[in-house]
């Protein structure tokens, strides 16, 4: 379907969330992003079971606290000062009467910050699962996507039709329906549990495994489309030249087509990365305690829904923007003069 034919346009128009952002603001995003990630990584490390074992073995039993249950984990950033600011400003606002919108906003913001400080540990745990789901599924998806794209372009009638059928089917149905299919219809969760190992690092609990399977299947189809259009943009003369020096089809694909095609596919791939970070939130619907579900939990405990979803939205934004920035860096690092993602060589 046409979402297939138009990936070229898509790759250009949607690839970079940050491409249009002015340089100064991009630097600001990078700094905030670095702080965010430092905090996030430190939180994950602090409660990481594996690191705990190592630290204990090295004689620091209290350095890493993996034994603390998720629900009672403490934040490092105190909410108190923000709360105090909120109360103080609220006092002033009350004195001035109800008219002052600006002050009310200030109160709201200070209150938001105080609330964020208290719920941040829970969200950090959710974010770990979000990142895990995204990265694992994206990489597994890539492993499937490369042969799918090659089959589509060079596979002959049968293979290319099969590859096309797969991508059309996956891209033509909602991701949530696919997750439901795996979770409810195929009951993959019980299958995973029956096989065992689930819940032991690095293998997550059964539901998260099912989510990984679903996201992998789904993102393979999208990644294959991006790679396919990149492969097709490589000039046929180079394939002839490769054959003329004596490379066979496999060698040509491996040494000439893929090194160029995969580079050209990076903007599309970034797009898919960002997409997957956002859509990993759907794993919440099959009970995976990732970032969105963590936020929901906080929401139903505190009834402060608006603030919870604003804060979790900011979490996702931070993840997505830092990813887009980092992928831009990556693209620049592996770029080759004359070979760029606008699809034009020379």
């Amino acid at each position, binding site marked *: 379907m046409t979402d297939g034919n138009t990936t070229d346009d898509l790759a250009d128009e949607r690839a970079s969330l940050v491409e249009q952002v002015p340089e100064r603001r991009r630097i600001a995003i990078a700094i905030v992003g670095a702080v965010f990630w430092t905090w996030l990584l430190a939180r994950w490390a602090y409660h990481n079971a594996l690191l705990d074992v190592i630290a204990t073995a090295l004689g620091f039993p209290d350095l890493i606290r993996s034994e603390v249950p998720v629900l009672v984990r403490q934040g490092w950033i105190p909410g108190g000062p923000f709360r105090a600011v909120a109360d103080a400003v609220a006092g002033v606002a009350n004195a001035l009467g109800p008219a002052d919108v600006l002050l009310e906003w200030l109160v709201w913001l200070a209150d938001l910050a105080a609330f964020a400080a208290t719920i941040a540990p829970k969200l950090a745990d959710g974010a770990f699962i979000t990142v895990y789901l995204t990265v694992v599924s994206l990489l597994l998806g890539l492993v499937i996507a490369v042969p799918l794209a090659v089959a589509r372009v060079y596979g002959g009638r049968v293979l290319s039709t099969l590859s096309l059928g797969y991508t059309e089917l996956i891209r033509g149905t909602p991701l949530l329906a696919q997750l439901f299919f795996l979770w409810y219809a195929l009951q993959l969760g019980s299958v995973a549990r029956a096989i065992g190992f689930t819940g032991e690092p690095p293998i997550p609990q059964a539901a998260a495994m099912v989510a990984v399977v679903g996201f992998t299947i789904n993102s393979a189809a999208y990644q294959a489309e991006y790679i396919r259009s990149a492969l097709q943009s*490589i*000039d046929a*003369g*180079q394939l*002839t*030249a*490769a*054959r*003329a*020096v*004596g*490379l*066979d089809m496999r*060698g040509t694909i491996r*040494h*000439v087509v893929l*090194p*160029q095609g995969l*580079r050209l596919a990076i903007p599309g791939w970034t797009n898919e990365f960002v997409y997957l970070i956002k859509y990993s939130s759907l794993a919440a619907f099959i009970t995976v305690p990732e970032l969105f579900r963590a936020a929901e939990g906080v929401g139903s405990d505190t009834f402060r829904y608006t603030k919870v979803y604003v804060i979790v939205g900011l979490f996702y934004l931070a993840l997505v923007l830092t990813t887009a920035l980092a992928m831009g860096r990556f693209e620049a690092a592996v770029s*080759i*003069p*004359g*070979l760029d993602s606008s699809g034009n*060589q*020379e």
Partner: protein
Amino acid sequence: MTLLELEDIEKAYENEEVLHGVSLGMEQGDVEVLVGPSGAGKSTLLRCVNRLTEIDAGTIRLAGESIHDLDSNDLRQRVGMVFQDFNLFAHRTARGNVTLGLEEVLGMDHDEAVERAEAHLDQVGLAEQADSYPAELSGGQQQRVGIARALAMDPELMLFDEPTSSLDPELIGDVLAVMNDLAAEGMTMLCVTHEMGFARSAADTLTMLDGGRIVERGPPERLFENPQHERTESFLGQFTDFE
């Protein structure tokens, strides 16, 4: 020794017949220039020799062996080809373009391949540009990388398909100089080119192809001065004005 022999080659695409019984023989060290109007079948003939295109009927022998008894990839190691549009691998440096075939087809180890590649780049006057990517080279430089890429495989025969037709006039000279050197060193070369200066100075044989048939074939001087066919005369006549 007869290196290349074509006997009654026929080739048709879909329903269009392109080659009608072409026969020719080249001795080792011969330089043959193939000319003819657009659509005559020159490229097709060249591509049949390294089996980028398969013939319908006839025989092609390389050093006495039918090329159809050879594995096509082995054949292509023994026959180098240079293209009109260079067709350099865009993701590899000049050096990388040359080493790819050496490492992946001949199975040479990396250091040896690099050494050999650099020697051949030096031979075409591009020692300095080894680290440049195709997009950073001029057309003439790109084409010389293309020649080095083919030469590095140590071929018995080189095919050139209009190697200077995509070049700006001032860049043609460098490429022709490399081809002249090669001819002088005794490389067997089958060249489609309309550079008549090169044909006069370097070719042993000039062949006029039209409508998939050889119209006339012989020493370049004879075809220029004393063509036997009206078709040859009028075709070559276009070029002599510029000499």
